[in-house]
Every structure is written in structure tokens, then in C-alpha cells.
């Protein structure tokens, strides 16, 4: 299957490890990704705080580019991008006047035919849980993973239309189907506060701390994420958390695509492991990966 690929600002900069591992996994699974022509930033989270019209118009630009290139499906691995694009689609679909207004602004009219999906959705839809286990090369059994989904993968359900809103299982199911052990825990969808990362780092540290602690409490060795922003907060702020709360976690935070990459036999370098702040070395030392 062929997908328009919207990497967003993060994957093209700070989250190249996600970009690398995602592309590797998609290639492995036979999912074709083609970067959206001349895509622009989704505007999150400043556009919607400034002007509603702007918040729909900006993602519509990239969506129209995808449509023009003949795509009817687009995947956005960053939850902020995903959410803004799904929202734009949903709002234009529900409000013809708004759609008209937007189209008046765009160079190429957007018909609204591009379905926006997260890579998790893509994998479930295109590959399916039953087939995922086939290409497994390495077993990561015994490693306890807490899957952290972030706030807007499933919320609001009207817009996202994916997975259980409050207790999603898609990532757990995917990782389980490749032989991994994922944990039952309560903070799967608690917000990490990323929109405050530049202005109120204290809040982000506070929220990330709660999430990490919840993961530790259920005995997680590692955390799996599906968003570069969540990753940034959970992975990079562990030192700040230690400074502020005196609690050091050292829990490696990996993209779910990095786990898939490992089990499918990719080298850690190909998956961008060297870019992780908290080294997964100790957690993965028994698996002969690094």
C-alpha cells in the first residue's frame, strides 16, 4: 500500500530516529511511504490558539498537496500533526462553508479525499496482527514494556476514530504480536504537557514525572511511544526530573517502530538508537542487540 508521508517538523529534525525506524519498518512490511510534496508545518499548537481559520488552513495546505499528488491516504507519525490534520479534515467535512473558505485560500482546491492515519493504524490496517509475527528474527520476550500512547492519538474519539479512547491497545497488540510483553497500566493516555515545553518546562517535568513513575510502579523496563513530542519529554527530561523530584528513573523510551525494527532484525544504528538520551543498553543487554 502507498501512503503520503507527512514527517512534520520533528521527524525532520530532532526525531530523526523515529523517521529512520519508521521508514525501515514500513519498508520491511511492504508499506510504501512518499513524502508529501512541499509540506508545511501543521501549526500545532499555536495556530489554533490564534485563529480557528488558520488552524484549519495550515494543515489543509499539506493535505491538498497530498491530494494533488494522487494520494487518498496520508500517514503522520507525530500526534500533533496527526491531530491537526484529522481535525482539519473532520471540520471541513462537517462544515461546507468552512471548507469553501479554506479552498478560497488554497492554491489547489482540497476535496477532502485524503484519509489521515497514524502509522499504528496503517500497520494494523495493512498488515494486520496475524501477519506481524511472521518476520520476527529476534525475541524480546521477558522485557516489560509500557506502551504510552499520549493524549491525542485517540482523543477526541469523534475526530480520531481509532482504538479505545481511554485505554488503547493498538500498540500493545502490535508489540505483543511480535512476541513482546506489554504491561497493563493506568497512564497510557495521560498528557505529558508537550505544548508547554518551551514556556512552562516545570509543568512538563511535573507531568512526565507522573507518567514515568506510573510506568515504574507497574515494573516497566522500557517505555514504547508513538509520537516524537512524547518521546522528547519522557526521554530527555529524566535528568531534570531527577534534579527536581530526587527520583531517577533511567527508563529507556523507544519508539514502537524501533522495537519492531529490532525484532525484524535491523541494526540498532539503522534505527537511530544512538540518538536516545537514556541509553537502552542495560535494558536490552541480554538480547544481544547493541
Amino acid at each position, binding site marked *: 500500500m502507498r501512503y503520503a508521508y507527512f514527517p512534520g517538523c520533528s521527524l525532520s529534525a530532532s526525531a530523526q530516529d523515529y523517521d529512520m525506524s519508521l521508514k525501515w519498518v514500513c519498508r520491511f512490511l511492504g508499506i510504501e511511504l512518499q513524502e508529501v510534496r512541499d509540506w508545511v508545518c501543521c501549526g500545532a499548537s499555536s495556530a489554533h490558539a490564534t485563529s480557528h481559520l*488558520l488552524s484549519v488552513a495550515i494543515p489543509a495546505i499539506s493535505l491538498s498537496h497530498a491530494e494533488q499528488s494522487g494520494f487518498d491516504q496520508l500517514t503522520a507519525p507525530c500526534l500533533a500533526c496527526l491531530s491537526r490534520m484529522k481535525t482539519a479534515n473532520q471540520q471541513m467535512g462537517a462544515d461546507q462553508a468552512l471548507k469553501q473558505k479554506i479552498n478560497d485560500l488554497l492554491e489547489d482546491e482540497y476535496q477532502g479525499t485524503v484519509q489521515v492515519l497514524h502509522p499504528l493504524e496503517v500497520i494494523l490496517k495493512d498488515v494486520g496482527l496475524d501477519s506481524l509475527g511472521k518476520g520476527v528474527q529476534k525475541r524480546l520476550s521477558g522485557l516489560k514494556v509500557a506502551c504510552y500512547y499520549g493524549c491525542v492519538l485517540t482523543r*477526541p474519539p469523534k475526530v480520531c476514530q481509532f482504538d479505545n479512547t481511554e485505554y488503547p491497545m493498538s500498540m500493545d497488540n502490535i508489540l505483543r504480536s511480535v512476541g513482546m510483553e506489554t504491561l497493563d497500566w493506568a497512564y497510557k493516555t495521560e498528557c505529558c504537557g508537550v505544548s508547554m515545553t518551551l*514556556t512552562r518546562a516545570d509543568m512538563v517535568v511535573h507531568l512526565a514525572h507522573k507518567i514515568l513513575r506510573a510506568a515504574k510502579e507497574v515494573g516497566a523496563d522500557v517505555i514504547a511511544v508513538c509520537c516524537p513530542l512524547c518521546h522528547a519529554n519522557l526521554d530527555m527530561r529524566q535528568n531534570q526530573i531527577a534534579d527536581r523530584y530526587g527520583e531517577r528513573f533511567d527508563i529507556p523510551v523507544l519508539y514502537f517502530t524501533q522495537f519492531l525494527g529490532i525484532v525484524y532484525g535491523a541494526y540498532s544504528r539503522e534505527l537511530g538508537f544512538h540518538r536516545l538520551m537514556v541509553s537502552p543498553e542495560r535494558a536490552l543487554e541480554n538480547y544481544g542487540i547493541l
Partner: protein
Amino acid sequence: MMKIELTEDTQKLSREIQSLTGENVNLCYQCRKCSIGCPAVYEMTLKPHEMMRAIQLGLEEEVFQSGTVWICLSCETCNTRCPQDINIVRVIDGLRELVMSGHVDYFNPHPEIPSMHRLFLKLVERYGRIYEMGLALILNLKMVDPFKDIDMAWPMLSRGKLKLLPHKSGGVEELRRVMSKIREIEGES
């Protein structure tokens, strides 16, 4: 006890919000699920359900001076759980729009947040994409706290996580035109 009279005047704000966002805050019956689920509520002077009530009562000053609208993380938790299906985040966005467009002018205890949004959009307009390093640096300079999160910068650079130079999108021209048209439309209204 405070005495509240509902008049045309007190309903101004809720009507304004409704026309701006399509959301009717008068539907709120104070079940409090929004506030209890909110991850940022601990930082809010006015909790979300209190804000809904304040809007219903037209307490404009309380609503804006609380700064709650800027503390909101837009995580959609309240929206998802509101039994009255009020899009609270959208209401908050509407309130933010009123501030950003200069429609209302109250003391804001968190001025750095709207500043960040303005700066963010400025960078988006210039490059079409976000240039994280630049955004963080400029913002820190603006807030007179140049070394905030500096502890994170070196490890990020060393792992290739921060790009030192901006990277322009091919779509930036279209984006600029869209943004300037929107400014025109919204400036008119």
C-alpha cells in the same frame, strides 16, 4: 454570598464564544469531570468547570485574568469526557483568539505563552516549518531567561537532535499567502 444578576451584559461573553466557536457553554451543568481529568488543573487559578460557570455568568475579568486559557494543554481530555459534549478546548481556543486578536485586553499572568505562539507562527511563516533551535533561543532571549533548558541543549546537539540552521519548505510561499489572506479576512471582521 455573591449576588449575580443575569442580564444582556452578563450573557455577552457566552454569546461571543458561541458565535466564535459554535459551543454553548450554558449547557454545562457542573459535573466537574473536566476539571478532575485535567492534567494541568493544579496550575489553574480557575478550574475548567469554574471557567464554564464564569463564562455563563459573564465574569469576563475573572476568566481572562486567571490565565487558565494559557495553562490549558489542549490535550482533549475534558472534551472527550464532557457528558454535555461541550468542546471545552475549542471554547478555550476561542478565548485565546479573543486575546490574540486584541479583542480583549486583561492582565495576563502568563504573557510568555501567547508570545511563544506569536513567535512560533512568525517562524512558520518565514520557513514553512519549525526551526526548534531558533524558536527556543529567541523565546528564551525574549523571556530574559536565555539559559532555560540549556542543560538539554548539548546532549541534543551531540545526538544530532537539534539543527543549527533553518530548513525551508518548498510550500512556504503558499503558506505565506494563506496566512496573509487570513490576516486580511480577520482584520476586516
